[in-house]
């Protein structure tokens, strides 16, 4: 087998933003029938060490022969050396990833885009609202807040899923239910007999929470239909439009503001987002 010299490899990788870095799958956890949590370790030690990111950013996951897919990072930036991606088996690339085993190698490019304003959020209350797979990018933010918990005021997490089998990261949330420094409320549309949480849509949970409108940052991620209704609830609580952050899913094909697929209004989701505040999002025609 021919080996590409390390020097040549690094030089190319640094100058070519389209070139994925080989990364090894170090852990796979089955979360639901369709979602798995993958942990990756970039093989090149220098690239691995320089790989730092913000919660809310995404990577391009590459499987040669199949293609690339944009996936938001689920792990906290404080967890260095590893990247966690919560991936739904939804298309060609994610399907091929689901067929991979621990130890297999894939490609990763990134991190790309603008994440949540973590530093700005410090010193404030935080209200995080997730629907379905939208918990994936918020999980990074939640874990990051957890790591620096003393820097934040009240932290409230509202998370809605279709049914109990589709609740992601349930093992972690079950543990957190007993903590008094996170107000965590889970709800499902279609509960079964095992479910002891709330029932109904995530917007229904707003009756149960108190929000200090002058001191609270909001972060929302979920299916496209969800945003408008959650934002309505936040606005009813008098939260500022520029303190409500939303993360968008679009077809970020190149990740670097060139290919055009993720265009929304006058912006590109990949470089201008995927996290926008609501004032910006309102100004993106066709976004919400």
């Amino acid at each position, binding site marked *: 087998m021919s080996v590409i010299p390390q020097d040549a490899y690094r030089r190319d990788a640094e100058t*070519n933003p*389209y*070139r994925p870095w080989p990364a090894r799958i170090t852990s796979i956890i089955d979360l639901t029938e369709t979602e798995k949590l993958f942990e990756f370790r970039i093989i090149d030690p220098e690239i691995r060490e320089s790989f730092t990111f913000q919660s809310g950013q995404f990577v391009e996951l590459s499987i040669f022969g199949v293609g690339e897919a944009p996936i938001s990072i689920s792990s906290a930036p404080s967890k260095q050396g590893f990247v966690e991606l919560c991936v739904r088996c939804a*298309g060609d690339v994610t399907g091929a990833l689901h067929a991979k085993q621990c130890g297999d190698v*894939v490609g990763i490019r990134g991190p790309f885009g603008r994440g949540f304003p973590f530093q700005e959020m410090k010193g404030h209350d935080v209200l995080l609202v997730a629907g379905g797979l939208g918990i994936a990018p918020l999980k990074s933010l939640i874990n990051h807040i957890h790591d620096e918990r003393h820097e934040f005021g009240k932290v409230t997490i509202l998370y809605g899923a279709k049914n109990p089998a589709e609740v992601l990261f349930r093992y972690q949330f079950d543990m957190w239910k007993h903590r008094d420094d996170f107000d965590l409320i889970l709800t499902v549309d279609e509960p079964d007999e095992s479910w002891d949480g709330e029932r109904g849509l995530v917007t229904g949970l707003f009756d149960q929470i108190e929000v200090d409108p002058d001191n609270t940052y909001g972060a929302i991620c979920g299916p496209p239909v969800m945003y408008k209704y959650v934002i309505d609830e936040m606005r009813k609580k008098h939260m500022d439009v520029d303190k409500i952050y939303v993360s968008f899913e679009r*077809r970020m*094909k190149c990740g670097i503001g*060139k290919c*055009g*697929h993720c265009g929304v209004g006058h912006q590109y989701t990949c470089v201008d987002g995927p996290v926008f505040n609501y004032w910006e999002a309102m100004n993106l025609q066709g976004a919400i």
Partner: protein
Amino acid sequence: MFFRMVEKDQIADLVRGLASEYEVVGPVEKQGRFVFAPVTGAEELRLDYDTTLLPPKRWFFPPEETIMRFRTADEEVTDDEVFAPPRVLFGLHPCDINALLLMDNVFTRDYVDPYYKARRDNTLVVGVSCTPSDTCFCNVWDTDEVHWGFDVFLTDLGDRYYASLRTVKGAELLDDYVKSSEVTEEDTAEFQRVVGEFKQAFDNDVDTTQLPVLLDAKFDSPIWDEFGEQCLSCGACSMVCPTCYCFDVTDRLAPDQKSGRRVRTWDSCQFKEFAAVAHGQNFREGRASRVKYRYYHKQWGYLSKFERVLCVGCGRCARACPSDISPVRVIEALQTGGVR
């Protein structure tokens, strides 16, 4: 900038000289229309062309190109070198050079695109003045003039060219291959007269007043439904556009499945799947939303980032559209509220 006068009969020497060092690409006639193609001598060039079918973007950003070769076993890239031969694009009009400048903003700023950049760096541009055709509206965007983005620009003064030398390389080419002479005051006066006539020759009058405001304020206007009804989603407008840069990327495996190529191809926001994501959601499912997005991005989205509209008024899309949708018609509809 420096200027020299070049007799027209010197162009043959210039092209011959250039061809000894570079691949020379210029406008040639093809079945009554014009295309950019490699030439070996000036006699093949048609510097009096109106416009070409395809813009010169393909020489920097080909319709299809391999961006890397890979090995599937270990996900390694085996080759991502760029093929960028020394080339001269000879005879570009101001609109097309301006279009390159707009492309440069996208491909050579943040996250430099190594493929585009290598070709741009290795390509000399020799511009030539033009006369407006019936679909040209470059005057509307002030792209009928160009002051950078080229090495030499030749303004036609009848039997001579008034040559603007923008780069060292451009100046050297003239020195090396042609006999040129000093520009006199009379030459510059003649240049002014010719350019003045050129400006007068445009007869279209497109009202671009407050276009970004209109695009937002009339986002839900029924004019978009009308254009959506007419549009066939063929994407011809994007393919012939000198400023459309959107692309798709696909992997092609070799028959043994062990290696392959990652290939990028021109794409169009007018194609139905362009904004679709994995599990069925399509953010621009309807044709009206796609036609609207194209104009919204060109006249406002790009403008908001780079302070120029993403259109140079070359008129190629107006010629290519089977439904006669054109920027001029769209802008007029935005101004008046009715589609004509």
